Structures are given as structure tokens and as C-alpha cells.
């Protein structure tokens, strides 16, 4: 038999763990973990964006952003001027709501900020919240999970939860893949590696140095790599341009076999000649991307090399990049030559890409896909119909523009679903998350430097590494032990 989920409270920490922790200054007393925040409205075009917090520091955060004014009356909207508590810089005039626990969505203290939906305002408020002590960006599904853990969701609401979490983790995974596929990603990985090695060496010094002959200068080397890391992180955080490199908008990738007309479609949708088009298969060798406004939604449109095997090394690389980009797509525009559906490359593409995605139900919120049959103009008007096995598709002629209206309508529906759904991991929040963890990593390195006690110093590095791991993945104990046993001859 198992005990009920709801009646159980976490077993109170025993003994001295709590002894010293009751009298913290400034920060609210612990009791329910960290306070989280997130943009909870969709990212499409909207007049008002809603940002939510949940946790014991919600009250202080609300006061902090409203220049220290008293909390508004519970559960009623008040108009306040929001400003950044650190710089004092005004952000927006907004409606704020205060929901003291347990009568709130998550059962914890919650605050809501209804701000004007502009990019700069939302981004400013998120960054201001990230700077409030005790607050951190929410993980995938964390709000819902907290509500769930406190019995605040009805059974029907719970039903949708797993799908939501799946969607969020999937979207975050794609988002992370995109982020890490670039200069910023390489930087983060390098930093994480440096930090892992530094921590492992300090740990080796703690766990082994007295019995085993570790080199004398282990700690000095760690000090110098931490100094280097601090400088790099500091420079990165001061350089605002790097933050802009996170690409925003839904990622729409045009893919298909060679010479299906992918580049023509990209040019048509972006209304400018992004890609070179020619009748020769394999004209596009690299991934070309262009920001576009598709049916009113911001999107990043990528043209990719036609997928085929057994070609020269340059085109092979193009194909590899195309496949990598497919992995990161939110929406795939699969383009086939309507007059060439039975060719091996078309069949192959249908089997390997289209069939795979078309069979998944949409509420699993894996990637979405629109199948477009191009070159409608080449079909004879009374030619044989398409095979009934073909998944739902749209007909188009890039040459004549026939079918463009219905394609745009389909795109609008897909993008509305994608962007209206908070699960796609709004880039604004991604950016706030990024900055939050990098800043927290830098702060923790400060604790390392201050500490005279080696256990405290190691804790600084551990916390710093934890923040980077939120961006890069990894970060377990086994990784540390691997480095220790790789770099040192220890053990009896």
C-alpha cells in the first residue's frame, strides 16, 4: 500500500539543519523552495503580456518592482509603475495582482504582472525579476507541477498536464539545440568543461590529497582557471549584443528532395530573392535563413539542401546540415515535386521524414509538418489522382502563385497554434533564463573566491556548475569522479 500523495508533507528537516536557518535576513524564510517566474501568456502578437511568479519571495518581488509600495489588496487589480529594483529604471505602467497562498493557482504566494506586450517591456520585466534575490526562471511545467503537488488541480486538469510538460520539454529541447548550435553554445560548453575540471580538481584535493600524491599546485591552477572564467563570463554579460544572437520566432524549415522547389518557395514566402534558384538539383548547399513575417507571426525561415545520398562532399555536408536543422524545427514545410512523386528521392523523403511525423498526433506536440506538393503547373489537368496513401497535403505552384492563399491560411493556423501556446519556449524567457544562469554562475564564482574554507569554496564551484548545467545539460557526480580518476592516480 502506498501513502496518499496529497496528505504528505515533506518530512521536516531534522536537527541542526534548521537551527541556523530560521533567522535569515532580507530573504524570506524557507518553507517551500525557490520562487519561480515565467511569461505565462503566449508570445504571438498581443496587447498585454502576463508574467507570473510563485513562491515565498513573490511578495518581496512585487514590492521590489513597484518601488517598495505596499502590496495591493489580495486578488484585485491595481495600476502600478514598474521599475527595475536595481537600476530604478522605469519599465512600464502595469496592472499587478497579488494572490497570497494558499488561495492561488499554485497554492503558494503568487503575483501577476499584466504589462504591455512589447518586446522591450516584457524582456525588461523578466530581467528585473531575475535580479530579485530568491527568484529564478521556472523550469518546464514547474508552475503546473507546483499546483499539482499542492492538490490545486482537478483530475481533468491533471490529464492535460503530462502533454503540456512533454510539449514544454520538447520545445525547450529544440530551443536548447538551437541555442547550442552556434557561438554562444560553444562558449557555454567550454565554460562548463572548464568549471567541471576545476570542481573535480578541488574535489580531488578534498577527498584524496592527504593520502595520495596530488601535485602541489592543483589549487593554484584551479584559481587561475576560475579567474579566466570570471573574466570571460563578465565580458559576455556586459556585451549585450551577444544576447541578441539568440534567434527569436518560430523556426520554419523548408525541406525536401533535390529540385522540388524549396528555394522558390522560400523566395515566394519572404518576397525577396534569398536563395538562388536553378533547374539543377543540388543548387542549395548550405542552410540559408531569413527572418520573415509569416501571416502575422515572426518566424525564421530556413532553406536547406535537398536530401539525397551519394553526392559530392560539399553537398553531403549541406545534407548533414539540413538534417541537423530539421531536428531544430518547430514547423517543417515538406516540399515535393507533384509531377515526380514516384521517384526514389521523393519516396525516400516521404518514408523517412513525412510519414514519421505525420503519424504522430498533434497533441504530443512534437514537430508540426505541412506537406506541400509544388509544381502544380506541370500536372495535366485530368492526370491520374494522387495515391490515397499520401498524407494530407496542399497543392502549390511557386511559378504561378496558385495555391498560395491556402498555404498562407494553413501557415497561419499552424503558427497560431505554435505561438499562442506558451509551451514553445518564448525566446524572451529563454534569454532571461540564459542571463539569469550566467549571472548566477558568476556570483557563485565570487563565493568561491571569498571562501577560506575549502568545502565552502567547492560549494561555490558546485553551484556555479549547476547553473551552467541548466544551459548545457549534464552536471552529475559521475562526471566529476570521471575527471578525478582521469587526471589523478588515486586510490589505495
Amino acid at each position, binding site marked *: *500500500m*502506498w*501513502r*496518499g*500523495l496529497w496528505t*504528505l*508533507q*515533506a*518530512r521536516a*528537516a*531534522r*536537527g*541542526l*539543519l*534548521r*537551527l*541556523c*536557518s530560521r*533567522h*535569515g535576513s532580507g530573504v524570506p524564510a*524557507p*518553507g*517551500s*523552495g*525557490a520562487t519561480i517566474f515565467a511569461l505565462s501568456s503566449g508570445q504571438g502578437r498581443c496587447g498585454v503580456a502576463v508574467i507570473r511568479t510563485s513562491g515565498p519571495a513573490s511578495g518581496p518581488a512585487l514590492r521590489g518592482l513597484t518601488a517598495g509600495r505596499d502590496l495591493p489588496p489580495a486578488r484585485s487589480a491595481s495600476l502600478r509603475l514598474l521599475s527595475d529594483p536595481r537600476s530604478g529604471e522605469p519599465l512600464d505602467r502595469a496592472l499587478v495582482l497579488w494572490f497570497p497562498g494558499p488561495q492561488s493557482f499554485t497554492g503558494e504566494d503568487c503575483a501577476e504582472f499584466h504589462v504591455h506586450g512589447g518586446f522591450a517591456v516584457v524582456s525588461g520585466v523578466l530581467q528585473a525579476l531575475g535580479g530579485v534575490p530568491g527568484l529564478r526562471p521556472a523550469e518546464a*511545467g514547474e508552475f503546473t507541477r507546483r499546483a*499539482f*503537488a499542492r492538490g490545486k488541480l482537478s*483530475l481533468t486538469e*491533471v490529464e492535460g*498536464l*503530462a502533454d503540456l*510538460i*512533454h510539449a514544454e*520539454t520538447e520545445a525547450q529541447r529544440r530551443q536548447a539545440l538551437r541555442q547550442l548550435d552556434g557561438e554562444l553554445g560553444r562558449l557555454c560548453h567550454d565554460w562548463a568543461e572548464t568549471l567541471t575540471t576545476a570542481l573535480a580538481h578541488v*574535489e580531488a584535493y*578534498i*577527498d*584524496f590529497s*592527504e*593520502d*595520495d*600524491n596530488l601535485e602541489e599546485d592543483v589549487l593554484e591552477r584551479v584559481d587561475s582557471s576560475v579567474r579566466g572564467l570570471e573574466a570571460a563570463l563578465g565580458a559576455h554579460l556586459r556585451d549585450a549584443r551577444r544576447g541578441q544572437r539568440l534567434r527569436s520566432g518560430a523556426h520554419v524549415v523548408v525541406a525536401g528532395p533535390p529540385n522540388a522547389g524549396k528555394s522558390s518557395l522560400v523566395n515566394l514566402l519572404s518576397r525577396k530573392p534569398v536563395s538562388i534558384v536553378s533547374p539543377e538539383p543540388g543548387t542549395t548547399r548550405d542552410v540559408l535563413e531569413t527572418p520573415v513575417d509569416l501571416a502575422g507571426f515572426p518566424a525564421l525561415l530556413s532553406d536547406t539542401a535537398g536530401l539525397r545520398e551519394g553526392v559530392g562532399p560539399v553537398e553531403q555536408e549541406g545534407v548533414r546540415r539540413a538534417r541537423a536543422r530539421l531536428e531544430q524545427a518547430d514547423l517543417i514545410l515538406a516540399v515535393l515535386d507533384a509531377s515526380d512523386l514516384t521517384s526514389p528521392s521523393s519516396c525516400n523523403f516521404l518514408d523517412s521524414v513525412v510519414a514519421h511525423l505525420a503519424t504522430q498526433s498533434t497533441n504530443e506536440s512534437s514537430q508540426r509538418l505541412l506537406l506541400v506538393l509544388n509544381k502544380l503547373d506541370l500536372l495535366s489537368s485530368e492526370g491520374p489522382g494522387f495515391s490515397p496513401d499520401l498524407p494530407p497535403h496542399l497543392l502549390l505552384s511557386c511559378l504561378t502563385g496558385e495555391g498560395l492563399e491556402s498555404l498562407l491560411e494553413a501557415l497561419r493556423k499552424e503558427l497560431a497554434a505554435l505561438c499562442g501556446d506558451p509551451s514553445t519556449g518564448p525566446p524572451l524567457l529563454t534569454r532571461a533564463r540564459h542571463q539569469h544562469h550566467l549571472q548566477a554562475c558568476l556570483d557563485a564564482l565570487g563565493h568561491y573566491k571569498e571562501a*577560506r*574554507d*575549502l*568545502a*565552502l569554496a567547492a*560549494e561555490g564551484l*558546485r553551484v556555479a556548475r549547476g547553473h551552467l548545467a541548466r544551459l548545457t545539460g549534464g552536471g552529475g*557526480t559521475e562526471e*566529476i*569522479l*570521471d575527471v*578525478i*580518476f582521469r587526471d589523478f*592516480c*588515486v*586510490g*589505495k
Partner: protein
Amino acid sequence: MFSLQSCGRRVAGSLTKRHLLLARFSGESGAPRSPHFDVVVIGGGHAGTEAAAAAARCGSRTLLLTHRVDTIGQMSCNPSFGGIGKGHLMREVDALDGLCSRICDQSGVHYKVLNQRKGPAVRGLRAQIDRKLYKQNMQKEILNTPLLTVQEGAVEDLILTEPEPEHTGKCRASGVVLVDGSTIYAESVILTTGTFLRGMVIIGLEMNPAGRLGDQPSIGLAQTLEKLGFVVGRLKTGTPPRIAKDSINFSILNKHMPDNPPIPFSFVNETVWIKPEDQLPCYLTHTSPRVDEIVLENLHLNSHVKETTRGPRYCPSIESKVLRFPNRVHQVWLEPEGMDSDLIYPQGLSVTLPAELQEKMITCIRGLEKAKMIQPGYGVQYDYLDPRQITPSLETRLVQRLFFAGQINGTTGYEEAAAQGVIAGINASHRVSRKPPFVISRTEGYIGVLIDDLTTLGTNEPYRMFTSRVEFRLSLRPDNADSRLTFRGYKEAGCVSQQRYERASWMKSTLEEGISVLKSIEFSHAKWKKLIPEASISIVKSLPISALDVLKYEEVDMKLLAKAVPEPLKKYTECRELAERLKIEATYESAAFRQQQEIEEVQRDEALQLPKDLDYLTLRDVSLSQEAREKLHFSRPQTIGAASRIPGVTPAAIINLLRFVKTTQHRRAA
């Protein structure tokens, strides 16, 4: 490293008729000729002694079965206890009123606290122990423990009966069959067989079945466990040769002196048995390039090492050190084996070369040029049972009321064994008296980390405790093990004496009082600077600070503070331990506070229990990947917290599980 999947031997488990018949026969005959105990512990090593004593302390009539009574408490390998991480475990065992810390305080010959300058959270209490004394003292303790009986005998088989329907498991352990055919009945059985399950001792190319040099292995028991369907793996360990003390030229070696005064392991001892000046020194020497040559030239004569090419990541043998880190000298510590022992233990020289080559190798080491080898080093290979098959109370999921502790679970080290022994003993006893399982969380102790790692993740190399495995290292310190565990040990486990409980209560309340007093004393920075000129207090700041904040300065301790503010602080310096612990609390206050949130998040997930009888492989209505299903099926995490630590179980899978549990609960309630 070998993988369990490829090398493990899994035999479809089916109860043999023999077992059930035997049990039924005895049931029908109703003849209580066979003795009957609450708890039977098999094995008298470090896990077995702690398990037996803990079960007896909890009030169970307990039997300790061992091959030979005179090997109870034998230290089969190194003549030392404790160290970094291991010392933490000993303190926790002591906080639960276990034996090894107290016995070490009566048997040590060289006490030394490691990491003294690196911070109290990572200090490692360690001592060289007199083997003979340890054994004597342990035997005296075991033979005088109320409710505990000791019997010699080799166990051949388990008595298995029909399972209790309200628990999972295909059958129930109800006693043991000895080699001579006699039977002993028990309500719970604890196996602590160490390296004896199909143990094999290896020197050079020679392999002999033995659990330890000179002792028979257990083969029948290993077969029974395999037949029951336990997944079995194989591990290796080794021990160095022993050298005649009088053949070593100590005068040219680096001498290392013990602490003066020695710090005791146990919370209940103020001092250790030995006078500080009577302690024995250790010596340090190093290998030479010639040692490398001998190892490398003779790899073909070394079957243990050949197979170790994929061995553990750390370097237990001199061969692996030479192979993995060539062209270096390696440390060899020469450790005394006891007050009146003629032997020296060369720590760091674990080796499995043929004996004559070992002797040759030894003489290539500085100070050992004329050394006489008394006993060769050897390797041991033995079976262990994948610890993901046991619950955090150390009971097996396949067989009810059967508990495993120590090396059988894939760990290495006396302290790791002792820690599991205490927990197995308490839980075996609780099972009999129908009390809930006693589980220590990873947020409460190193014991919790050890058992959670084993039962959730398993291991494929001998698992050793390191402080780096412990996320909450700053809170789980050697100094406060009593505050963390003694109260639970007294109230929930029932394994702690009244005297120890009262001592821990006094310490806890005095500490709390001391901290609030320290917080209440506030002066300006300038005044503190005047009172304690030694401290690097900045007088630029104008805000007043408390005595607790001042105590955080590295150079300030309670003595200095009490000199500055005698009233009311003087009384907190009278007890050395109290004064030290106040200083430690101050040192870690801010960090412990920062960690508190993280601790609470872990505890929240640990409070969400998963049903024990879920069949993850066939469960419908839950969307789980095949990988997640298999991992959950094998590890059977008891809480959402444990499930989320299994690699391959995604956040989405966790929520799916929560949803399923909630739905089922709803239906059952309806």
C-alpha cells in the same frame, strides 16, 4: 568495466520445490526442535556485527551465524578505520549507537584527523587500528550484547515459504539451512557474506576458491540466490603483501606522527584509550622505476590484472597505477598492524603478481631493500548482487524479509559495510515488529546518499564513499551527525540508548541556546575591533553586527569571543566540543541557509511515494518510453525523488507517473 547486462547471470527465478516442501514439512510436524529467532544475521564482518547488534538493540532476539567465532570483527584488509567520507559514515553509525566508532576508540594506535585545514565539513577522522585489539574488543561487545546469540556454522541454503500477500515478493525468507543439514528458523534473515559468495583468491596465475586467504567460500548460497532470479555481477578487490617490521630500515624514511591529543570517533567518548605519547608512527616511502619494470615485464603472469583492464576507475592496485599513470613514483604508506604486531602493512602496494616477484618488487623500494615478505598480496574476485534489487530499507524485493548489507551490495570498505549493517539490522527488526521501514534520506546523511545511490543507480565498480558524492556536504558534517540522526534513531528506530539520547538532546538545546545568545549580542564594527584586535574586522561599516557574525571570521573562535564578552559567553567555552560546534555552525550559517531551499525541494519529491506493486513494463494508460519503463522496472524507485535521479527517466515521464498515481488513488478512493 563490465556491464551487468552482458556479464550478469540472470536465471529465470522459480521457487524450487525442495524449499517449499522443506518448509511445509517442518510446519506440519510442528516440532519446534529447530531453534527460532526474530533475526538471523549471516556473517560476522563489519556489516554483520553492526546488523546483529542493531537488531538486538531494537529488541529482536537475534542470532549471528559465522564460520568461526574467532574471526568476528576481523579487519581483512587495511589496518585502519575512517578517512575522508568514511569518517563521516562512522560518525553516523555512532549517532545510531553502532559499534565501530566506540571499538576504534578502544583499539587505535595512531589517531589522525585528515583535512584539518580544509574545513570542518570535510574533516576525516581516521586511525590506524590494532587488528588484534579490534577483534578482541568487538568480540567482547558482541558476546555481551543482550538478546544476541552467536553460533558457528556455514550456511548452505535459505528456507523459503509462501509470501505474505500484503507485500511484494515471490516468497518469504523463514530461516537458513546449515551445511550439516540442521535448520534455524527466523522472522528475518540478513546476508552479510562479504566476498564469500563464490569468492576466488588470485595470486599470479593461481586461482583458489576462498572468501579470504584461508577461508572457504559460500557456493551453495550463491547458487540459491541465482536460482531465485537475483541478477549477479562480479567484482574484484585486492590486498597488499605484509612485511616483517624488523626487516625495514625506517631510519631513512619520512616519519609521520599522529595527533596529540587524539580526537575520538564516538560522540560518547571524551578521550581514546591510548596515551597520546604511546601512539605509533607511520612512515612514507615511494616506488621506484624498477617497480614499474617488474610489473610491466610480468603482466603475462598476472591473471587478475589482465582481467582488470576494464576495472574500476580508481587505482586499487600497483599494477593499475603503473599501467594508467606510467613514469611516476607512487606513494607507499608503511602502517603498523598493532601495538605488539611484527607486521607492517604497505598501503598503496596492493598486488597480485606471483609471490616471488612480489618479494623482488618490494626490495626495489626505498627502506625496504632488505624487507622480508611474510604474506603475499592477493586479489579477490567475488559475486555481488545488483543493489537495484533491494529497497532503501535493504530488504530484497524478490524475497520478503531477506536483507543484504555490505560487499554483497557492491560496496568496498569497512565503514560502508558498517553503515549498511546498522540500517539492515534496524529494518530486519522493524519487519518482525511490524514497524514502518527506517530510511535515511540523502538530505539527512552520508548513509542516505550511499543507500540511495546503490538502490537507485546500482554500481559497476566497488562503491566507495567520497564526500563529493554528497550534494549537501556543508550540512551533513561529522560534527553534527548526532543532531541529524540520534533523535530519529531513538524515537523511530529504537536503536539508541537513553544515555546517548540525553547527551544529544543536551548538546542540541545548548547549541540552539548558544546561537541565539550569540545573535543577541550586537555591537558596532568599531567596538568589536576594539574588543578583538586580532580579528580583521573592517571599521568602515557603521551597522552593528552580532557576535555570531564575528565568530564567522576565520581567526575568531569561542575562546576569543568569550574573552571579549565574558558574560554571557564564558559558559559556552567550558565544553570543548560545544565551543567547536558553535564555531562550525557560524562558519556554515550562510551557506547552509542557501542550501536549505535545495534540500526542501529534494525532500518534497521524496515525500511523493510510488506504489510498490506497479508493473512498469505492462502498465497501460501511462505514456512512458520503453527505456524509462525498463529502468523503472529494474530500480523500482520508491519515491518520485528517487525516480527522477534515474538517468533516462525524463521530466515528462515523472509527470506521467504522478498523473497515473493520482488517477489510481482517485479510483481506489471512489
